[in-house]
């Protein structure tokens, strides 16, 4: 058969062949959907099956999720999500749940409790996480925190923060005769434990990255300040150093090998780093100004601190070994107590402007300043180990005292951390091992 190819057809074929490699494939078109909102992930929590321990796990877990801001717990009946079988997906979808948590806590033959959980993706019905813990019944709260962390990190990809502890200054007594004790609690305010007796005035406790040591300042009865190191497991105290003049704001380096602090000499205050192994001290700044409140970056390469070298209190950043410092805060008001986020992305600060004290965050170059909360007196921000939450203390004026609050890094939700009395100077510890 003759198959005539006209020039037109040939031209078409040629054109098609020539441009074929460059022709955009229809199927390859990518549609960009921008957004990224801030909607908490709905997670249905079915009551853990078991005795009182199971109920503790359920209630602690629900409370954790409520405080987390990023997860929105929905209570689902066990019939909807039994611990042994696949959950009732249509019913859970009806609740608008994206995940469902089921579990149980059973007493083993040795008297210990075996607690297990399963996390299902409601859109697929697949189990996406599941773990089992065997422990004494006294540890059920911690088991609940561990479960909460596992769920939180599985859903958000971020590290958890529920199984952490807070060291703070417990304040009791009349305002003019306050007794200040060093205390420690779980991040949700439970399991409060006192570390000092209250015969010394203690301020600015800071957790060591190892989680076993706390450094803080204590004022003797004579008013002499000293920097102390305390092992929270065995309660042993150790004086880091006695320095001429006043010492302030001790804080650990990320590797836990050094303590950085400020020392006043006459009218000047400069920053010093002390090697805990050799006890040698290195001077980091030398200015006719007040440099204080130092905080290491998570990689230990930089230090942020506050200084009035420019005329008013502002935040500066310099290398870990000293040298030229760069001012990063330029907003109105005075900036103080900078703290580098464990994630390294933000620096939290206290900002005083007029009669208000605000807690905020800014990027490490000073941009993107965001005020998370403000009021009569807010101070002393401390980061959760995952860099998503901050605690600070607030004094509301009047005859009351300070209380500790928690806020997320976006400032969306703020919650009171229950403490037995007044509380200040919180220091958030790392995740427990």
């Amino acid at each position: 058969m003759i198959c005539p190819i006209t020039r037109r057809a040939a031209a078409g074929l040629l054109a098609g062949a020539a441009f074929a490699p460059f022709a955009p494939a229809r199927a390859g078109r990518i549609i960009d959907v921008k957004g990224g909102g801030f909607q908490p992930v709905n997670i249905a929590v079915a009551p853990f099956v078991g005795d009182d321990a199971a109920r503790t796990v359920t209630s602690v877990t629900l409370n954790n999720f409520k405080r987390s801001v990023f997860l929105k717990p929905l209570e689902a009946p066990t019939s909807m999500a039994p611990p042994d079988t696949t959950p009732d997906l249509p019913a859970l979808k009806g609740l608008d749940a994206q995940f469902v948590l089921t579990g149980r806590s059973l007493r083993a033959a040795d008297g210990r409790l075996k607690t297990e959980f399963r996390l299902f993706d409601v859109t697929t019905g697949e189990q996406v996480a599941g773990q089992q813990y065997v422990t004494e019944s006294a540890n059920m709260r911690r088991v609940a925190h561990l479960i909460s962390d596992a769920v939180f990190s599985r859903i958000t990809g971020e590290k958890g923060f529920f199984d952490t502890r807070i060291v703070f200054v417990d304040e009791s007594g009349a305002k003019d005769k306050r007794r200040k004790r060093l205390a420690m609690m779980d991040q949700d305010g439970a399991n409060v434990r006192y570390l000092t007796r209250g015969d010394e005035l203690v301020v600015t406790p800071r957790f060591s990255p190892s989680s076993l040591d706390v450094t803080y300042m204590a004022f003797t009865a004579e008013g002499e300040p000293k920097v102390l190191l305390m092992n929270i497991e065995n309660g042993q105290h150790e004086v880091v150093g006695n320095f001429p003049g006043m010492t302030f704001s001790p804080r650990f380096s990320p590797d836990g090998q050094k303590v950085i602090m400020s020392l006043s000499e006459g009218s000047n205050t400069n920053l010093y780093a002390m090697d805990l192994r050799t006890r040698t001290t290195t001077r980091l700044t030398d200015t006719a100004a007040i440099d204080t409140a130092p905080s290491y970056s998570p990689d230990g390469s930089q230090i942020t601190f506050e200084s009035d070298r420019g005329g008013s209190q502002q935040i500066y950043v310099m290398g870990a070994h000293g040298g030229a410092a760069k001012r990063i805060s330029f907003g109105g008001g005075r900036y103080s107590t900078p703290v580098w986020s464990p994630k390294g992305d933000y620096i939290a600060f206290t900002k005083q402007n007029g009669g208000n004290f605000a807690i905020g965050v800014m990027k490490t170059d000073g941009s993107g300043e965001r005020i998370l909360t403000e009021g009569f007196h807010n101070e002393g921000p401390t980061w959760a180990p995952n860099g998503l939450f901050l605690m600070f203390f607030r004094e509301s004026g009047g005859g009351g005292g300070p209380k500790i609050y928690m806020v997320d890094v976006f400032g969306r939700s703020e919650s009171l951390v229950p403490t037995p009395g007044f509380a200040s100077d919180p220091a958030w510890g790392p995740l427990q091992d």
Partner: protein
Amino acid sequence: MRVSRSEPGFVVSLIAHAGLFLAAVVLFGSAEKFEDAPEMIPIDVVSDSELNSVTKGEKTAKEVKPSPRVDRVADKTDLPPEPPLNAANKDVPAPPPQAPRRPEPGSDNSPEPPKPPKRAAAPPPAQEPSPVDKKAPRPTQDKPAPPPLEKAANAEDKPEPEDAEVVKPKPPARPKIDSAQDKPLEPPKPPKPPKPRLRADDIAKLLEKRKELEKAKEKPDAEAADAPAQDSRPKSGDESAPKSKFDLASIANLLSREAPQRRAATGQQVSPASLGAAEGAAQKLSASMESRIAAYIHDHYHPCWVSTLSLGGVAYAPVVEFRLSREGELEGRPRLINGSANPVERARGEQALQAVRRCSPMKIPADFIPYYEEALRDITIRFRDER
């Protein structure tokens, strides 16, 4: 006029001009003719999509009876009433009976039934898994997957090439238009009139018969009768000329009938698009329609992405591929094509997958259905984070 010897200018000029004229006549008459201009070949730039659209049809087009393909309306005044000479039709190749280039589905007149595979009549689902689902084959009884199999099915159902060739007296219009355009500079040869001599002879015979009749009627005027016999053209004003079937109008009719055959793009009425042939490309997707569809998809999935949890600081933008049925149902699993080992990015990728699942099915509007294959079956979305 007197010619002065002392003033011979006029004579000299006359002689010189005459000589020049003669020389010009002689010399230029023998000069070689200019060569004809070389044939020019017009070139049309035909894009790939235009080439495809030649064989495209509309799925939703009304089914029409086959008629000669016509692309533009002819001038009505040029079309006389039906030519009186039916015999002329025999000399002119009849227009092919089937206007559409391909047999129309459902058409009674379609010559061979190379059945256009209907997309709806999907092939058995288990024959071949869709490419998307290769890694995670679904139980076949779960859902048939018609679209992925269409190509394979089409290939199987496609009419055999031989059959297609048999059908191929094919499009009357296009090929001929092409060939006509290849040689546009050739003088448009008037269609050969159907041998006037034969006609003249026939007429002469008729006239002779008439002559005999006239002779029988005692009006023998042989000379007057012979002249029209030799020259068929009736002389002007000669009322006595016999009315012949052959006249210029009939030639014009022939010409006018031939024209649509040669250039079948002209006719009384523009042909509507035929039903789409299965093996042809789908209806052409314009850029604006593509943008409309993309915007529709964006708006549908946007709420499910915005309602995810973004913790910010993540440059990673998960890209999710998924397949929709004609009903807008999710077919198989959405696939993350740029998965990450980083836990935060992995969680973000899973949120994107969840967003697709939560916002499915997506109702496909009726006016998008013709573009299902091109723009709605396989969808790829990049979920960006603006925090």
